[in-house]
C-alpha cells in the first residue's frame, strides 16, 4: 500500500466517522426539534398559557394511558407523562427538588406520596372533599384516586372457598405449610402489614408474620408472579391485591385456575388501599394540574377505573364492576390510609422475622 492510498484510506475513515457523527447529531437534533414544536419555547420555562402539563406517573401506561388520552381530548391540555416506578419517580422528584419540571405526581401508593410530602402544595377543600375522609391525606396534601382491596387469591383446582379461613389468622395453621405464596418486597403487602400493626399491635403482627414464615411460604417478586403461581398450582393461596386477577382472566381466559377470596372476617387482610395524586410546589401550571385531578375524580374517569382496571372508584355515585364485592361488605378495617405511611417500623418488623433480607 502506498502512502497516498493509505492517506486516502485514513481520510476516508475520518470522513466516515465524521459523517456518521453528523448524521447522528442531526437525527437526534431533528427528533428533539419535533418535541420542541410541541413543547413551545423552552422546555419548562413558562406554561402560563395553560396548555401543557407534566405528569410523573407511577401508575403504568398500560392502565392509565388511555385515560390520559381522554383527558387531553376533553380539555385540550397537552399532557406529557413520565412513566416509571413510583419509587424511582419519588427519588427523581427528591433529586430534582425545586428545579423539577413536574406538575403532578400520580403515585401507586400513599407511601410514595408521603416520601415527597415536603414538595407538594395543599389541595383545595372542594377537590379533596370528593373522596371519603379515609382516602386522603389529613393535611389536604394528596387525594386518593382509586381503591384496591387486599385479598387472598386461591387455586380453584386445589381448594374451594369453604377450605379457606375467615381471617388472615387462619393461615398460620401448620396445615398451610408449603402452600402459601407472598411478596414481602411489594409495597401493598407492606401497607397491609402496617395496617396489621395499627389494628392488631406489634406483638400480634409479629406472631402472625412468624406463623407464616414458619409455614415456609414461596417468596415472589410482586403481585403478578404470585397470582401466576397460584393459577398454575405452584402454590395454593397468595396474598395479593384484588385487581391483577382480572388481568389474568382477560389474558388467559376463564379457565385460569385462580380466583379471589375476600376474607369474610375482614381485618387487615381486606384493607382497601388507594392510589393517589398530588400537585407539586414547582408546578407553574396549577390550573391545568387541578383540572387533571378533577378529571381523575370525575364520573368518567372513576367509571374507567371501575370498568377497565377493576379498581374501586372513590367518588360517590359511581359503582364498581359487577365482579367486585360491595365495598361496604368487605369489612374493611377502620384505618386511615395516610397512617399506612409509617414504613420504617414495618420494614424493621419484616426484617426481624426474616421476611426481608
Amino acid at each position, binding site marked *: 500500500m502506498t502512502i497516498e492510498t493509505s492517506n486516502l484510506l485514513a481520510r476516508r475513515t475520518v470522513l466516515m466517522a465524521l459523517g456518521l457523527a453528523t448524521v447522528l447529531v442531526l437525527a*437526534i437534533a431533528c427528533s428533539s426539534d419535533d418535541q420542541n414544536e410541541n413543547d413551545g419555547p423552552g422546555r419548562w420555562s413558562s406554561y402560563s398559557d395553560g396548555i401543557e402539563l407534566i405528569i410523573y406517573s407511577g401508575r403504568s401506561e398500560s392502565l392509565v394511558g388511555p385515560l390520559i388520552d381522554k383527558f387531553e381530548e376533553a380539555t385540550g391540555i397537552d399532557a406529557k407523562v413520565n412513566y416509571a416506578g413510583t419509587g*424511582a419517580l419519588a427519588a427523581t422528584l427528591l433529586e430534582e427538588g425545586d428545579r423539577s*419540571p413536574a406538575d403532578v405526581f400520580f403515585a401507586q401508593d400513599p407511601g410514595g406520596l408521603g416520601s415527597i410530602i415536603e414538595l407538594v402544595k395543599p389541595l383545595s377543600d372542594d377537590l379533596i372533599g370528593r373522596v371519603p375522609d379515609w382516602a386522603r391525606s389529613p393535611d389536604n396534601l394528596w387525594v386518593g384516586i382509586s381503591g384496591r382491596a387486599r385479598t387472598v387469591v386461591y387455586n380453584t383446582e386445589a381448594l374451594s372457598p369453604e377450605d379457606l379461613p375467615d381471617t388472615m389468622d387462619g393461615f398460620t395453621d401448620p396445615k398451610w405449610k408449603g402452600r402459601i405464596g407472598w411478596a414481602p418486597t411489594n409495597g401493598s403487602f407492606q401497607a397491609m402489614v402496617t395496617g396489621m400493626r395499627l389494628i392488631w399491635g406489634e406483638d400480634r403482627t409479629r406472631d402472625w408474620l412468624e406463623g407464616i414464615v414458619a409455614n415456609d411460604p414461596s417468596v415472589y417478586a410482586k403481585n403478578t408472579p404470585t397470582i401466576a403461581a397460584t393459577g398454575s398450582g405452584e402454590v395454593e393461596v397468595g396474598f395479593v391485591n384484588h385487581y391483577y386477577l382480572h388481568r389474568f382472566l382477560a*389474558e388467559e381466559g376463564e379457565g385460569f385456575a385462580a380466583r379471589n377470596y375476600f376474607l369474610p372476617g375482614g381485618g387487615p387482610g381486606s384493607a382497601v388501599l388507594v392510589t393517589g395524586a398530588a400537585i407539586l410546589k414547582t408546578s407553574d401550571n396549577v390550573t391545568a394540574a387541578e383540572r387533571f385531578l378533577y378529571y381523575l375524580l370525575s364520573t368518567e374517569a372513576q367509571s374507567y377505573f371501575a370498568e377497565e382496571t377493576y379498581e374501586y372508584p372513590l367518588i360517590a355515585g359511581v359503582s364498581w364492576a359487577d365482579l367486585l364485592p360491595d365495598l361496604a361488605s368487605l369489612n374493611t378495617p377502620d384505618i386511615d390510609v395516610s397512617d399506612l405511611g409509617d414504613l420504617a417500623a414495618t420494614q424493621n418488623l419484616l426484617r426481624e422475622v426474616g421476611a426481608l*433480607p
Partner: protein
Amino acid sequence: MKVTRAIGEQLPQGAGATWTPRRLLPPSLRREPLSLWLAAIAVAGAAALPVLYLAVRAAESGESAVDLIFDFDTVAILWRSIQLIVLVTLGSVLIAVPLAWLTVRTDLPFRRAWAVASVLPLAIPSYVGALAFISAFGPKGLLQGWLEGPFGVERLPDLYGLTGASVVLILLSYPYVFLTVRATLWRLEPEMEEASWTLGRSPWQTFRRVTLPLLYPAIGAGALLVALYTLSDFGAVALLQYDTFTRVIFNEYNNAFNRSAAAALSLVLLAVAVSLILIEASARRRARYYSGANAARRRRRIVRLGRWRLPAFIFSSLVTLLALGIPVFVLVYWLTRGINAGESGLFDWDAAYTSVQYSVAAAVVTVIAAIPISVLSVRRPGLLSTGLERFSYVGFAMPGIAVGLGLVFFGIRYATGIYQTVYLLVFAYVVLFLPVAVGLIRSSLLQVNPRMEEAAMSLGRSRINAFLTVTVPVIRPGLAAAAIMVFLLTMKELPATLILGPIESRTLATSIWTAAEEAFFARAAAPSLLLVIASAAPMTFLVLRERSRN
C-alpha cells in the same frame, strides 16, 4: 536508525515475554499525546459521576447508613452473591469459549447461523428471560403440563433459588464472553497454532496449550462483564427467588423510599464490584499477545471436526435452543394467545424506531469514548492508565437506577439544557456500558504489534493517521463487537431509560416493562420479539461481512 533496528529485531517468541519495542524508540514517538490522556481522564471522570452522587447521598445519612449496612444480613447476602457470581461466570466461560471457537475456526455445520443466534440472548431483558423460563420449566410450567398426561409428573423440581438463578443467568449472559472471545479469535494470527500442529500436537493439545493462553485477556474481559452483570441484575434474581444485594436496594428505593440507605447499600455493591475488577486485573499477565512478524490476511486453517462434528452440532443447537429458543417460544405463545383473544395494535413500531435510534447513538459514542482509555492501558501500562481503565468499569456494576438518579442529580443542576433529552440519556448509556467497549477494544489492541504503527509513523504518518490506517483495520472485529454489544445492551436497558428518557418517549424496553408490570403478557411479548429481531440485524451484518472477507 533506531527505528530500523526495532523493526529488524528478532523478538523472543511466545506469550509471557515482557519485551517491549517501545523502549527502542526515540522519546518523541514513545509518548502518547496529551490530548489522548485528557480524553481518557474526561471519560473516566464522566463514569465517576454516579459514584460521586452515591457518596453524597450515603454521607447524608450519616451513621444510620452504617447501622443499616450491618442491620442487613450483609455477610449472608455477600456469600449468596459470591456463589451466584462464581457459578454464572464459570458456566458462561464453559459455554462461550467452545462455542466461539466452533463458530470461528471449525467446519461446524451452519456456523454463521449459530454465531448470530448465540449472541441474541444478550438482547433479552433478564426479567423477560426469567419469566419465560419460569413459564416453561417452573414447578407447574408448560413442560410439566405436557409431562403430566403421559407420565403423571405432577410437579417439576423447583427452578427457584441458586440453581435456577445460575442457569438462567448463564444462558442470558454467556454472550458477553462469546463476543469478546470471538472478536479475539477472529484476529488471532495463525502461525503459532500452525507451528504447534507442525510439531505434532493434536488439535486438542494445540487448543489447550497455544490457542487458549492467547485467549486469556478476552476470556478475562468477558468473564468480568458477566460477573459484574450478575452482581447488578435485579430482574432475574427477583423472579427466581434468590436474594442478592439488588433486592435490598430495590426495597429501599421502592418501599422504604430511603435514598440514603439505598446509596449506602449501592456503595457496598460497588465495593464488591471493585474487588472483582481487581481480581481480574491481577489475573492479567504482562504478556505479549501479538506475533513478531505481521501475518495479516493469511488464510486460516479450518479445523475439521471429523467425528466430533455431530457432538459439536448438538452442543451448539442445545445452547441456542435453551438460551434463545425457550424465551422466543414462550413469547410467541403469549403473543398468539393475545391475538386469538382479539388484542390488536400489539406492535409498537415507534418504540422500535426510538430504541434503534438510541442504541445506535449509544454504540457509536461509547465506542469512540472507549478508545482513549483502551489505547493508553495497552500501550502505556502504568498506574494512571490502568487506574483509568479499571475505573471505567464501575458504571456497569451499579444498579441502573443509581446511575439514573446520579445523572438526575448532576443534570438538573449543571446541565439543565440537556436534562430529560436524548443527549443526557446517551451520556448515561456511555457511563453504563463503557467497560463493555473498553474490554473488547483492549483485548483486540493486545493483538496488535505496536511496531506496525510506529513504522508508519517513522515513514511520516501522523499519529492519528497511523492509528486509523494501521491499527483500526486490525482491531475492527473488536470495534464491531463492542458496538454490537453496546447496541444490544442499550436496546434492553430499562431503569436509566425510564428515569432519564425524554418525556413521552417510549422504547421497546419501557413498553415491555409497562405491559409486564400489569400482566399484559401479549402486549409484553410483541415488543420483546421486536427487540430480538432488531438485535439480530447488526450481528447478522457482522457475520456476513466476515464471510465476504474470508
